[in-house]
């Protein structure tokens, strides 16, 4: 493992961001719009709902955390998609770069890009809508850590999917957060869900984060061990996703897919 090689993958993405407004703006524009939209929505709900229910912390906080997960996932996939779009696979994979170095490069890049989105969301949510992180206390950092790990896992899984199924399958990857959100209980307690959906939710690390967040905001008890379990799940999922990517890459090397990767060559 040579850190300079992983850094090169992240540097390539930094160069692309630096030279393109179309790439840089989405790092924070959509999450900022989400903050504004859900910020006003939360304010309005505070005026019509039962006194004592704080939607800013329940709803806006949930949107902020969910958008952070989405940014992390997209931060990973975007770096990979840049190689797909510029047909750069042969140049990249015919170098000494190992798969673990490449994946580390994707993660390094998303640390930087998701931090930009998070910073903008935090500024807007606190300065404009009065979201106070005191409501979450010290748990805010582990919440972010679990969501970060899960975002990385889903991002790597998405990259593997596109490597295996071809560039057109990127449309399977974009909607993954929307597909997961009903199960993760982003906006409602898991007890709302039918039994079979709760079984799925138990396998999703974000569900532990959002349950914990709601418990803290309502002043209820919050089980740290549940979040630890969620964190453990996320670590396992990162390892599984990395193993899946590595397996797909091996298949691509065996079949020659890497060398002739295009929308038409993969079915």
């Amino acid at each position, binding site marked *: 493992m*040579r850190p*300079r*090689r992983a*850094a*090169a993958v992240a*540097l*390539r993405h930094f*160069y*692309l961001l630096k*030279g*393109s407004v179309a790439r840089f703006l989405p790092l924070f524009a959509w999450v900022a719009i989400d903050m504004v939209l859900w910020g006003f929505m939360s304010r309005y709900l505070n005026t019509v709902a039962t006194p004592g229910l704080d939607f800013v912390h329940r709803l806006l906080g949930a949107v902020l955390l969910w958008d952070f997960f989405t940014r992390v996932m997209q931060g990973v996939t975007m770096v990979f998609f*840049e190689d797909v779009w*510029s*047909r*750069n*696979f*042969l*140049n*990249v*994979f*015919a*170098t*000494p*770069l*190992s798969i673990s170095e490449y994946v580390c490069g994707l993660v390094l890049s998303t640390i930087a890009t998701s931090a930009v989105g998070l910073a903008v969301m935090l500024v807007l949510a606190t300065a404009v809508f009065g979201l106070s992180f005191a409501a979450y206390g010290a748990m805010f950092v582990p919440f972010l850590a679990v969501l970060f790990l899960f975002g990385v896992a889903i991002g790597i899984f998405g990259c593997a999917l596109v490597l295996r199924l071809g560039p057109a399958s990127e449309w399977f990857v974009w909607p993954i957060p929307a597909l997961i959100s009903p199960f993760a209980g982003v906006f409602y307690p898991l007890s709302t869900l039918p039994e079979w959906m709760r079984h799925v939710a138990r396998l999703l690390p974000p569900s532990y984060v959002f349950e914990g967040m709601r418990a803290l905001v309502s002043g209820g008890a919050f089980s740290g061990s549940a979040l630890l379990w969620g964190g453990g799940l996320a670590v396992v999922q990162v390892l599984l996703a990395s193993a899946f990517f590595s397996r797909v890459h*091996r298949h691509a*090397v*065996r*079949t*020659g897919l*890497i*060398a002739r990767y295009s929308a038409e060559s993969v079915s």
Partner: protein
Amino acid sequence: MPPPMVTPVTTPGPSRVPPTSKVLSVSALRKAYGNTVAVDGVSFDVGRGEIVGLLGPNGAGKTTTINMLLGVLEPTSGAIRIEDVDLARQRSAALERTNFAAVYSPLPGNLTVYQNLRVFGLIYGVKSLSARIAELLEEFDLVRFRDTRCGVLSSGEQTRVALAKAMLNRPHLLLLDEPTASLDPATARDIRARIRGFAAHGTGGVLWTSHNMYEVEEVCHRVLFLSHGKVLLEGDPRTLPGEHGKASLEELFIAVAREPLSLERV
């Protein structure tokens, strides 16, 4: 029936320096896709300071061979050693000594020349990278394009960038897949001169594919003709046509493409 005697047309080739050691050893290399065999038990070497031409009609197995040498295609069987390093077992160490340029694999057009060289320089672990990039920009006449995106360069300029990238790590094995295809004759001659200069330096060897037989005669010390995934002929490109009763390398190429059985190696 023995082939008719024909006086071969020859061109002055590169000065031949006997290779002192091997930079590439390929033995019994085979790649099969189900029942289709793309490369069938190919064995050859490339010596230090040597330029070897890998020739053959479309579909003969040249690019498949090059892809296996680059580690992006796993052989069904056989061994590849770059210097003394086994590619299958020590992929990164083997590829650190290798580099390539291929007409079908341009560098990302959305990065500038400098950015591309910096990124690939880091990946190849080039020491004193900034100085090396400056040296290559000068050598390949790219100084004025340093901050230009590769996508807006002409074919010739893009080829020079690809070659600069291929030289970044001072490779011991340089793989060139039709590097002069689509270039005008003047630019192609310039590129050939640079590759000859690289080989003459004596630290690395070159494996070169091309469909331009004039170019092959001018540049290559030795050629291998592939047909249906096998090495059919091997020898000096200036004497090989005469040995097989052909007037030129181009005629020999056409014979390999149309009637390989008549030339089959014993």
